[in-house]
């Protein structure tokens, strides 16, 4: 009986903690999370995507090691290509028509360290352009599988 009581007490305490925690997340999550809206809409549509791409490119430009990979790139084309890809993966009204990710990055000598740095720049750009946390996580989650393609032909 005593054991049962203790077990019940500890279970109800765990439940209480868990529900308090979930409640907090629900309160903060609901403000940002709209199931019916596309990620494209939750990010803030084309204006935000273009601002994020510009912000990202400035961060890359400040990183001597990363920017050297784009020495022969047409920056306007790159910006348009990045924007159409972010629009496409976030279910916006765009169709990415650039080169596939493995071909676009082949034999560039990209390391995990480079890849991680660009991920951090993208996330920081989204933060600065006011993209909510849930939308940032969603976007990063959709881009993460591209790692395999980007690294395939290194």
């Amino acid at each position: 009986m005593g054991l049962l009581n203790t077990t019940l007490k500890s279970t109800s305490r765990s439940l209480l903690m868990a529900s308090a925690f979930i409640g907090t997340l629900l309160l903060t999550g609901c403000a940002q999370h709209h199931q019916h809206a596309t990620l494209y809409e939750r990010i803030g549509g084309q204006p935000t995507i273009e601002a994020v791409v510009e912000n990202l490119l400035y961060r890359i430009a400040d990183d001597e090691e990363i920017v050297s990979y784009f020495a022969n790139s047409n920056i306007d084309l790159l910006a348009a290509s990045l924007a159409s890809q972010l629009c496409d993966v976030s279910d916006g009204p765009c169709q990415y028509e650039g080169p596939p990710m493995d071909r676009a990055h082949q034999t560039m000598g990209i390391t995990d360290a480079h890849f991680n740095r660009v991920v951090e720049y993208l996330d920081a750009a989204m933060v600065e352009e006011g993209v909510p946390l849930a939308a940032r996580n969603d976007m990063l989650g959709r881009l993460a599988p591209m790692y395999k393609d980007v690294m395939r032909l290194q």
Partner: protein
Amino acid sequence: MRKNGSSKQRTIVAAAALSALLAATPSVAGSRILGTGAVSAIEGAAGGGLSPWAVLSSTASDDEIGVTAAATRAWVDDYQLTVTGASVNLHDRMEFSIARQTFELSTLGGELEQDIYGAKVRLFGDVLYHPLVVWSAGVMHQRLVDGTVPTALGADDVNGTDAYLSASKLLFNAFLGRNVLLNATLRNTSANQGGLLGFGGDQGGHAWMAEGSVGVFVTPNWVVGTEYRQKPDNLSAADEEDWQSVYSAYFFNKHVSLTGAWLDFGDIAGLPPQRGGYLSLQAAF
């Protein structure tokens, strides 16, 4: 007097070092994403506190080296555990760790000490990018400093070696827009109470145990979760139960993290359910 002066000096040096780390720019840290080095488990390896995870310590990536140090204390009803440990991560492929555990028997009197030498290899995958998650295998060799008490309780050995296989995965946007970290570990062990009560006994020896955890990144810096560690029960003289925790870890930046937890260690050495708190400070370079 002199002792006071030197301990004050040490405190000042430690505080200065800590504030330098807190202010340090991320450019001197490893390049892996914040939090992917986890925290230091009580046996020294990167993990969740009770269990080693498949990620390697610090944020060192494929062409980098990382060094991590951690100090941990756990207070439960009749015991106090202190752990100091360090680990090195070579190119996000190998992790070597060392830890010294001091287990104070507050009620029974005396203390038990052991050293733990660990090695972990990342087999393949990545916690963020790989669809088949990240897989690592590791070993931990444990040596009790003084095996008198464990031997008296019926332990077969005063040294032991655990081997484990671990998988970890971050699920993006998985729970209310937050990222969720999952970990599962299978450990082959003969350790009684993590080795503090020796290895093996009249009721068994090496066996496979399951460990797991789930955590939610409330923000990119802050993860809250729970961890479970199945335990053997080798000593008829000292019932042993599974361990569990509810934890909260805050990553100030890639260098400094602070973990707090609520622990339930169950019965230890004949004393009733041991519950209490846990604090761990980690610094990584």
